């Protein structure tokens, strides 16, 4: 009997005490709890690049909104149906969660490294400044989508109801951050090395990136705060990109391929054709970039699909094969863009070291070269009276707007921003626009799940911007 008693005691005791490896049970043995900041930074860069490139209608429909492309059979998004899919929610998800949160975490991780010696400290600082540059880029894009957005209270899991900040205030803060980043970067030292998927750790290029981004943000402020726009651009342009310089993500192919390849080739789907909006303009101008932008329909002509209408794939031009290539790079920021901003700045009488025409020509030339055209193409094109800055029709807004928009092909946000800021070129209206005013959207709606997950702040923000509508203009969209 005593034996049983002992056995029982031992067994019951066992159930109480054999818990010393409990923590080990609950440890994930297949995933790390710490990773180097460079890996997080690379992940954020690729996530940003992928989202910029993708034409997936659940993620990024700006190639449609900017009327570069239109849809073949399922024309909902081209008709501004933002509700059928979680497009806006995905926008928030990717930018805040996949990009910004990993960037913030990378800063934590890098800041926690014990850097010893001047070089190590400089490299550490460079990395943190570079991360900040990318964050600024992302926040600008978010503002340009929506207007007011969560900013000062964002990325804090302990505050699950982040308030929205005023868009103009955010813009100003972004400029201030850029100032600090550019000033802080030390191009005598390295940074991320090969972890950096945009510049391979080249700090001098990141500095130029910062200055170019300043110009890009400031130009949007021209109609809101001309003084700030002017001083910022005048101070930044000289340190910005030179012709041919570009920030882009180059896809290695294979498992990491260009999202346009994934969505249009790998998926086997035929959802998009170039829109008549761009094809018609380029046909009129006999634009040399057409061969790089599109294929010919039936080997005879470039024909764009009527924007927003049913467009049988077989009857229209297609997106050029190269663009759908596995390794095709996606531009994040480049000199072409800068040149057009500077042309605009010159028209606004900012002192930017050149005339509007000078930068206009550089913008066009830079674009033609980038897309694969020759110097002869540039000369011929610029000599077209409808292109030539002196002879082309319309206001400077029309001339610069049209050419900038043509040059920004497949870069939806840049194209749409140009249209919103300069009101050119004229966009087509789809047959059944789902926007509240039946016009081209001036902004995106906030994610529907913000209405349920962050209601008070959502309604406050909607009020503050003048209504959560596609017709509400952004603070910088004055015309």
């Amino acid at each position: 009997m005593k034996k049983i008693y002992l056995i029982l005691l031992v067994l019951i005791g066992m159930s109480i005490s054999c818990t010393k490896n409990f923590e080990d049970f609950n440890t994930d043995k297949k995933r790390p709890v710490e990773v180097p900041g460079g890996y997080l930074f690379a992940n954020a860069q690729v996530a940003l690049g992928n989202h910029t490139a993708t034409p997936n209608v659940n993620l990024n429909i700006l190639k449609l909104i900017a009327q570069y492309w239109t849809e073949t059979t399922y024309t909902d998004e081209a008709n501004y149906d933002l509700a059928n899919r979680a497009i806006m929610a995905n926008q928030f998800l990717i930018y805040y969660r996949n990009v910004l949160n990993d960037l913030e975490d990378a800063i934590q991780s890098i800041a926690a490294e014990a850097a010893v010696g001047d070089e190590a400290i400089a490299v550490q600082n460079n990395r943190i400044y570079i991360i900040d540059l990318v964050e600024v880029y992302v926040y600008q894009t978010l503002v340009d989508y929506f207007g007011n957005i969560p900013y000062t209270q964002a990325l804090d899991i302990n505050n699950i109801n982040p308030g929205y900040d005023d868009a103009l205030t955010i813009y100003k803060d972004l400029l201030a951050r850029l100032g600090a980043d550019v000033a802080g970067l030390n191009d005598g030292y390295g940074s991320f090395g090969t972890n950096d998927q945009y510049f391979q750790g080249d700090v001098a290029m990141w500095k130029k990136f910062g200055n170019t981004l300043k110009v890009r943000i400031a130009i949007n402020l021209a109609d809101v705060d001309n003084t700030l726009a002017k001083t910022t651009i005048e101070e930044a342009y000289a340190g910005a990109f030179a012709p041919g310089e570009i920030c882009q993500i180059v896809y290695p192919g294979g498992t990491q391929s260009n999202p346009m390849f994934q969505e249009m080739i790998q998926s086997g789907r035929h959802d998009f054709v170039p829109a008549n909006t761009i094809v018609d303009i380029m046909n009129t101008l006999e634009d040399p970039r057409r061969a790089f932008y599109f294929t010919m329909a039936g080997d005879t002509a470039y024909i764009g699909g009527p924007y927003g209408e049913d467009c049988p794939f077989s009857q229209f031009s297609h997106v050029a094969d190269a663009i759908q290539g596995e390794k095709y790079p996606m531009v994040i920021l480049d000199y072409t863009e800068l040149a057009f901003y500077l042309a605009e700045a010159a028209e606004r009488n900012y002192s930017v070291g050149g005339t509007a025409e000078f930068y206009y020509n550089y913008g066009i030339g830079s674009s033609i070269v980038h897309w694969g055209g020759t110097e002869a193409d540039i000369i011929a094109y610029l000599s077209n009276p409808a292109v030539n800055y002196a002879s082309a029709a319309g206001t400077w807004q029309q001339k610069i707007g049209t050419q900038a928009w043509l040059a920004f092909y497949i870069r939806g946000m840049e194209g749409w921003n140009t249209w919103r800021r300069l009101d050119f070129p004229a966009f087509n209206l789809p047959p059944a626009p789902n926007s509240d005013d039946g016009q081209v959207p001036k902004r995106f709606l906030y994610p529907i799940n913000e209405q349920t997950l962050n209601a008070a702040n959502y309604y406050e923000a909607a009020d503050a911007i003048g209504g959560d509508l596609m017709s509400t203009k952004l603070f910088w969209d004055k015309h």
Partner: protein
Amino acid sequence: MRKFTLFFVFLLFVGMQAALAQMEVKGTVTDAKDGTPLPGVSIVVKGTLTGTVTDINGKFVLTVPAGYNELIFSFVGMLTREEKIDGRAVINITLEDDVVGLNEVVVTALGVSREKKSLGYATQEVSGSEINAVKSNNFISNLSGKVSGVQVKGTGNIGGSTNVVIRGYSSATGNNQALFIVDGVPISNDNTNNYGQINGRSGYDYGNAASDINPNDIESVNVLKGAAATALYGQRAANGVVIITTKKGVKTMAKTKSYGVAISSNVTTGFIDKSTFPIYQKNYGAGYGAFYYSETEYPGFEYLYDINGDGQTDYTVPTYEDASMGQKFDPNILVYQWDSYFPESPNYQTATPWVAAENGPEYFMENSLSLTNSVEVVGGGEATAFRLSYTNQYQEGIMPNSKLKKNSFLVNASHDIIKNLTVSASANYVNTQGTGRNSTGYSDNIMSSFRQWMETNVDYKQQQEMYDLTGRNISWNWWSPDDAKNQATPAYWDNPYFQRFENYETDQRDRLIGYAQLDWRITGFLSLMGRASIDTYNELQEERKAQTSASGEFGVNRVDCTSGYSRFQRKFTETNMDIMLKFNKSLGESFNLSALLGTNIRRDRVDQVFASTDGGLIVPDLYALSNSQNQMQAPEELLTEIGVNGVFAQVSLGFKDYLFLDGTIRRDQSSTLPKDNNVYWYPSVSASFLFSQLLDVDWLQLGKLRLGFAQVGNDAPWGSLKDTYTFNGTFTGTSMYSLPNSKANAELKPELSSSLEAGLEMKFFQSRLGFDLAFYKNNTANQIMPVSVSYATGYSSKYVNAGEIQNKGVELTLFGTPVQSGDFKWDIMLNWAKNINEVISLDSGLQNLQISGNLQGGVTINARVGEPYGTIQGSDYVYQDGKRVVKSNGYYLLSPTTDIVLGTIQPDFTAGLNNRFTYKNWALSFLIDWQKGGSIFSVDMWYGLGTGLYPETDYINDLGNPTRDPLTDDETSGGVILEGVVNTGTAEEPIWVENDFRVPGDDYRVFGWARNPNAGFVYDASYIKLREVVLTYSLPEKVMANSAIKGVSFSLVGSNLWIIMKNLPYADPEAGQSSGNVQGWQSGVMPTTRNIGLTVNLQF
């Protein structure tokens, strides 16, 4: 803990006091009716745990401890007798049929057999023969309608999942499935369907693991519904427990041996229930509108290609359009179709008449076939009993090339080492092999093509002939004739025969379930049980996509590709160590005390890997990971381990056979909770009062009132305490890591469910009529769940302890024998249950939690405060005075938000009505299964109405013209006027008038998804089904009197014979994706089959 030890000492002390003098009693138990010996009668020395069972000849021998003078004889279906020994050495006794069922013994938590009358909570038993009548590959589905408060829902997929929810959904994001226990061993009922499958993207339904249990081995199933019943099981039993007792061998007396052999054979075939299959319109073919493919006489055809090589452009069908809103059929039009592009085709370069297909999708479906053969041997000797069984099941599904094979071996045996020490062991090996399970969900699913994306001009017999002839993927669905000629991949859909025979999956599960147990009757009133049990299996799922397939999501990361191979391997092991000390003693004349003290040590381990090729296969038909076009994506690996240590105790006190009181307490310590917070206790108390024992009235045989209260805790999901990084592959040599979507929480506390239940059981008129009524209320608070948060926080969700879900309900079981005269008897049983579910609260300030937010069609399944769990939310119409608002363009105005509650997955009530007629050797029973209410969103209708497949899109309009005729401004117009009101005034001063704006009917936007809200496609999920009909004939015993055969019976079995009522068109409202919390959403579901089978049972 010290208290326990003290309690033990007390028990042991009491035990040792038992005197040593004892005597032996033997005898025979026979049936009072006909004097035949009764094997398996349980004999217990009253007030002790000492007992035995009668052998095959009804004989028993029992050693009675000194000081005891009474034996209790009990047997299922017989009246229990208590008999004084009074010094007799031989006691022969007869037992009478128990019409009242007062002494029914049921298996309760931890395998403890209890008299049902003493239980203060609801249990309901179903016999093995009821479960095994209809041969199915998943016995769980045979529980439907047989137990009140148990919701059983199959998916309709071959070998597919079955969702089993008892008394409603209680956990917001956790597991709501019942726990299965076989002979005391918890059985994994895991569902390994991946996220993409469950959320309806694509994939196969691999079913739940509990379906491995062989129904032929089941003696009885007992369902413990409430927490009071299950509290002893601890945290895992929060969702109710299904206790399965398997058949066992019987010991014999003296030195004889006995054995019996039984053979059972069944063949079943199934035919599609046409009410669950689409009906197609037969007037229009391929296209999304008949107006824009060419500017010719036939605008529904393309006019771009020269097919016959005569240098002239020809009319071709837009083969890339998987819709039927196109050119009107006209046998006089000759057009080049898909079959004109292939040299092997009899119609190569030949235009054919434009007509509806002779052989539509129904041609593709086959009749199902299943063969089940079982053999079992039961036997025993003086000290040993055993049972051996083998079942082979072979099944062919209704899709070509779908097969399921199952082999199950079970052996269990017990042996008395010495008089008071019995060892028993059981081993069940099950091998399941699937080939070509049907694909499910939205994409890559042949049924979603049949229901959503199809051309009514495509003849499936021709598709079959072309595949048989060439072995190639000659689909009907090409981007262009050039693509077809160049053997490029099809646009969206493969030739369905190619898909079934080349892109099939295979799967295999090898499983071992077993235990070894030691029972030691220490003294008359004290016994000790020790058991070690294991449930372990290896599972392999291989998926293939042959080269030249249409592109689709595949493998790890679900990247689009046109060929590939993936393998998912999983090893699951659960071990349990149980020790239980049982005590049972009469205290004086009036009181009986039984007590139980035990410990349970559980360890779970899952080790799985999912790997796939990337970017396609290099060498055709070589299904190996090394045959990957791109470097493989990193495989997904998961290794989880969970440990739970529990100690529990139960005390039951009985007073004079009419008052019973039960108390239990359990302490669990779980590895998934934070170290400082990983211990939790939960108690239960219940009482049962048999007031009929105090009333002496003729008409009342049983009156019992019961009351129970219990709390059950639950731990956190594995690995939810600490953030880990997700590996996202490498990019130009750099590893990419990302923070998780869900923020972990190191402060989690256990979940807590509290439940209260009351019940009334009564039997009247010699048990010709009776009922069992139960009321319950169950609240689960402190829910551990990843709540969605604003994405601006940098996460999509966060683990919290918050929220409360309440289930309250009524269950009624009504039974009776309306007619009993001579050889004829009619028994009837009704099970009815209503559960009212409400999400009381979520995390502070949170009103809604998405359970699935990624479903095709844009609807979400949610837990929303103030609503039942599982609301279907999406876009709605906008209403003005109850009428739908139409915009000035003639289409409906849609709600600006998509979070409008459109329905719920919760039914209003469920019911099952079983009738059984017996006449001499004949028995006929039928079961009607009824679900009232609940909703379902049909992606099939959402798209299928848009693509113009159904007759609802092709009818005669208000002007008497076909809806798809062009719009004109006179009485010849086609088109549709949508019912609703339109504002002809201003926004400020609206004037509402009936809409009279005509919109085109030959455009995909009018009936389907593009211009309509989700609300238009949410259907009532009610149904009434004739679930089972069983006709059995047993050969009279006298026929076999002089043969070795002891029994022969034949059964004609029908299942799902008739859906008497439903409101969902063209599909079974029960059909779905998978088990789990994502319900109420259908896409490309399988049709239901009407099954008819014949079973022959032979006993030797």
